[in-house]
């Protein structure tokens, strides 16, 4: 598909560095899938879908900065949704979110919560201003918070909130890779799913720029089971836009 035109209808400041851009186009979405967002004349970048008609963006580089310049009535191009999304299970689930990694987990919490699944969320952020989608997770179940600076909840990393992981039928995780690697090392790999971030070019499984070992993050992922990731370079290195290895 060519990019679909999406007109921005509303911009919400979620935190001092994170904004949600709602648009006039809805996508049928499995939580965890992503879209390629084209900021015309600038770049095209992969973004998680936190709603069926919005993207949630942290300002981190030239493309996201250009996106932050856009407002209501401006438009972007969207390709997708792409990728597999989370495999939603029954029972009692644990979500572990770090920073803007809460974006793909929020619709998962809502979908699971409304299906009668018991949802517990561990939400981590640098500081209390940066906690993302707290109300959405609270509406779906229990929430525990950790902040790096101790301004709210546990003073420390979100991984320090993990206890008794065996009581959950499935663990879903999205956040910085170092944090996800820690989670992988703490839980049963076969019962955990991780949403990965990599440099994506084509988005459709052809070019191979986003490969983790032989796995295409854009097509085979972005969600992988811990068991699969254990055998790869996950948590050790990523590749930059040239394909060079960059250690975490």
């Amino acid at each position, binding site marked *: 598909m060519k*990019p679909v035109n999406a007109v921005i209808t509303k911009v919400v400041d979620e935190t001092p560095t994170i904004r949600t851009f709602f648009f006039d186009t809805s996508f049928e979405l499995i939580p965890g899938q992503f879209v390629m967002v*084209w900021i015309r004349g600038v770049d095209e970048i992969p973004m998680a879908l936190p709603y069926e008609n919005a993207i949630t963006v942290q300002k981190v580089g030239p493309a996201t900065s250009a996106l932050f310049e856009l407002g209501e009535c401006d438009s972007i*191009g969207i390709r997708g949704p792409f990728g597999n999304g989370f495999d939603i299970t029954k029972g009692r689930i644990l979500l572990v979110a770090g920073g803007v990694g809460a974006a793909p987990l929020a619709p998962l919490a809502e979908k699971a919560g409304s299906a009668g699944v018991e949802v517990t969320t561990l939400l981590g952020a640098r500081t209390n201003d940066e906690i993302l989608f707290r109300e959405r997770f609270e509406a779906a179940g229990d929430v525990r918070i950790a902040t790096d600076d101790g301004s709210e909840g546990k003073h420390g990393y979100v991984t320090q909130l993990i206890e008794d992981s065996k009581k959950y039928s499935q663990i879903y995780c999205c956040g910085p890779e170092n944090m996800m690697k820690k989670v992988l090392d703490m839980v049963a790999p076969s019962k955990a799913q991780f949403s990965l971030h990599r440099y994506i070019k084509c988005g459709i499984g*052809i070019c191979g720029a986003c490969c983790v*070992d*032989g796995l295409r993050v854009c*097509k085979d992922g972005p969600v992988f089971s811990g068991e699969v990731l254990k055998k790869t370079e996950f948590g050790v290195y990523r590749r930059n836009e*040239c*394909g060079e290895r960059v250690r975490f």
Partner: protein
Amino acid sequence: MMLAATVTGLKLKNPMMLAAGIMGTTGGSLKRAAQAGAGAVVTKSIGIAPKAGHSNPSMVDVDCGYLNAMGLPNPSYKNFQEEIDKAKESEVPVIASIFGGSADEFSEIAGALCADAFELNVSCPHARGYGAEIGTDPKLVEEITHAVKSAVNAPVWVKLTPNVTDIKSIGLAAQRGGADAVVAINTVRGMAIDIESGYPILGNKFGGISGRAIKPVAIKCVYDLYEALDIPVIGVGGISDWKDAVEFIMAGARAVQIGSAVGENIDIFSDISSCMDAFLTEKEWTLDDIYGMAHEV
């Protein structure tokens, strides 16, 4: 065994290779294509220095095929031997695709890498100073091919651009330079424009078309090269199923490469192999029987 083929001395269990630029940046992804049944794998094109490529969008589906302008992103040959070595664990031939701006650059890269064969990318349609800017000039193609042949002992293949008036003249230049085979074709120049805004969709504005749309173009190029050259032709361009692969071989391809179609089905290599095998059995033909068949009937 019915599909076993020898191409420029390389023994292939089947003639279906992974094309350059497709899942070819990491040893792990090349290995995966081999495990999915590819008879050989060709790496992403590797250059002198690390290169980020063009800005995105760098590839889009344009209904009749795909349009791309990746811009030769690669980690440079200095960081690539370990990827080739990892791919080699799959025990199929690994062909290094390389590109440069001059004969010296090509031979520096080829001389430094250990691979089963080299494929010279003189055909990328959207990189200034590289690719097709070289591959449309027969003198340069001959000079570069000769330089690489002198630098390595492995077979050297030259991948040709269809964006020329007469592809045979470029194929003949490669042959004069000592090429062991030519590969045809690279992508066909193309462009797409976003009608909501007037922006060309690709970050590079224009690029190359691959996929179904270019198959008839590729078939004609392979057919012409088969007539004109003494060295083998390897066919590539829009193969989506086993019938396409048979068609290429009948046009005169010794082996074929598969690119865009891998996105939707990475098992396409084994799928094509089993269907081609069944087809040949039913027809009571061998691979040799259908090789260049369209020229004999």
